[in-house]
């Protein structure tokens, strides 16, 4: 089985860390992984995106034209990329910043999660990417939440390991929200 997920937002939302976390989680589940960051003139506030492909066998192309799952963290990314999601796929949006309704994406399951609000409730807006990863794992069913939690040790530098419990909470909150709200 080959899985691919496209993550987009603005610089500072933790798009690349989210991609790294999902990659480490997939490695934890013994998958082969390709993580392909959009590479260019990155800056805070600019566009940030990455693609993660994982599979039991060959990962094939690191470039994906029509992703089966997209995680969209801001309006600009939604307007630009949501329509690329494969028919039958899932588009997980950060509904705090994205206005979207299901009719815009025929044949695609739209999952709206107020990620900024959830992260803020848990004490830190910067955990928006963790909420997103939790929502992805729960909704796609392609990675276990435990793998994500384990992957935090590798995706975060050692000096930030004290933040792991808070991040685990954010991942779980994202997962719970994604399974509840589905518009």
């Amino acid at each position, binding site marked *: 089985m080959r899985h691919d997920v496209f993550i987009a937002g603005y610089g500072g939302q933790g798009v690349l860390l989210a991609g790294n976390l999902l990659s480490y989680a997939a490695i934890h589940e013994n998958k082969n*992984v390709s993580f392909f960051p959009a590479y260019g003139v990155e800056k805070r506030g600019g566009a940030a995106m990455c693609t993660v492909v994982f599979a039991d066998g060959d*990962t094939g192309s690191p*470039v994906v034209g029509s992703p089966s799952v997209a995680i969209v963290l801001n309006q600009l990314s939604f307007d630009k990329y949501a329509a690329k999601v494969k028919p039958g796929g899932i588009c997980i949006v950060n509904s705090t910043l994205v206005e979207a309704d299901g009719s815009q994406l025929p044949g695609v399951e739209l999952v709206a999660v107020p990620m900024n609000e959830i992260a803020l409730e848990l004490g830190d807006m910067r955990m928006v990417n963790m909420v997103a990863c939790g929502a992805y794992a729960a909704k796609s069913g392609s990675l276990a939440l435990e793998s994500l939690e384990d992957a935090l040790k590798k995706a975060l530098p050692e000096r930030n390991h004290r933040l792991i419990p808070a991040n685990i909470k954010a991942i779980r909150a994202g997962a719970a929200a994604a399974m509840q709200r589905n518009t």
Partner: protein
Amino acid sequence: MSEKLFVKGNEAVAMAAIEAGCRYYFGYPITPQSDIPEYLSRELPPLGGEFIQAESEIGAINMLLGASATGVRAMTSSSGPGISLKQEGISYMAGSELPGVIVDIMRAGPGLGGIDASQADYFQATRGGGHGGYRIIVLAPASVQEMYDLTMLAFDLSDIYRIPAMVLADSVIGQMKESLTAHPRPQTVLPAKDWAVRGREAGEPQNVVKSLYLGDGEMEAFHWKMHARYQELAEKESRWEEVQTEDATLVVTAFGSTARIAKTAISMAREAGMKVGLLRPITLFPFPKQAYEAISGNCKNFLTIELSTGQMVEDVRLSVARDAEVSFYGRPPGAGSLPTPEELFEQIKKRYLNS
């Protein structure tokens, strides 16, 4: 060392160089390869090695020439504009029969171009690049694992044949992260470097490393000797990957990042019931002619895909059977030009229906 790591392609190159016993690196920063000097600047000094950020790419390649002349394993890396500056030094290394590894993480050009993935330096790499008529070994990795494996192979082949070796990749392969098994250096029997200039002990013969041949017939003899060595390389060291070519009526051929994208396009074609295969050269010099000869005995329809207006396609045309047709699809390098698997699948469909 069997634990699966998760690293960038560029880091895998640097890790492999260290594992291959390279302790000397000379370079100058340029996107998209700067992770290589960054890694080695941190890791080489504690191992007793030397990391030098040279005054320029020209300085760096001549430091590589000097280090290689003493018989140690050494490396430099750069991208397009820097690789152009290194051509004089590479020509002198080729003329002096010196080994040495040069990593080229291609970016769009000509000139300063851009930092996006490119395969438009295929000609520069495979035709020698500098003056005088020589070739260098060119290896084209298509994954992070191959960035590791082929960098180690580059050191071995370069030492065995006394020809500079280049690892030729692009920003997709250099910047992406994949799982990597960092295995130990393979146990290859290597010839003694009895030609190296290390300081002569009493009674030892004098070694001279030079590329100046003024004697009657000397230069001509050098060329024929190297010509024979290039032929030996082609026979013994050509490497390629074939995917589902046995029953294919269309064979897609591409190297590096493009081959990776094509692989997924080919899976789509297979799912649609089309008999399509992939032939991916791993060595660009020597070009794996024998694979094209063999496959074109049965399959007469080839599609070459490159991130350029067509360079490798010329070698493909020179290698296939005369009655085989070779078509081309290219996306010249630059922001937004990287094709998707879906796009390549459309090209495959066009070619396949015509076959």
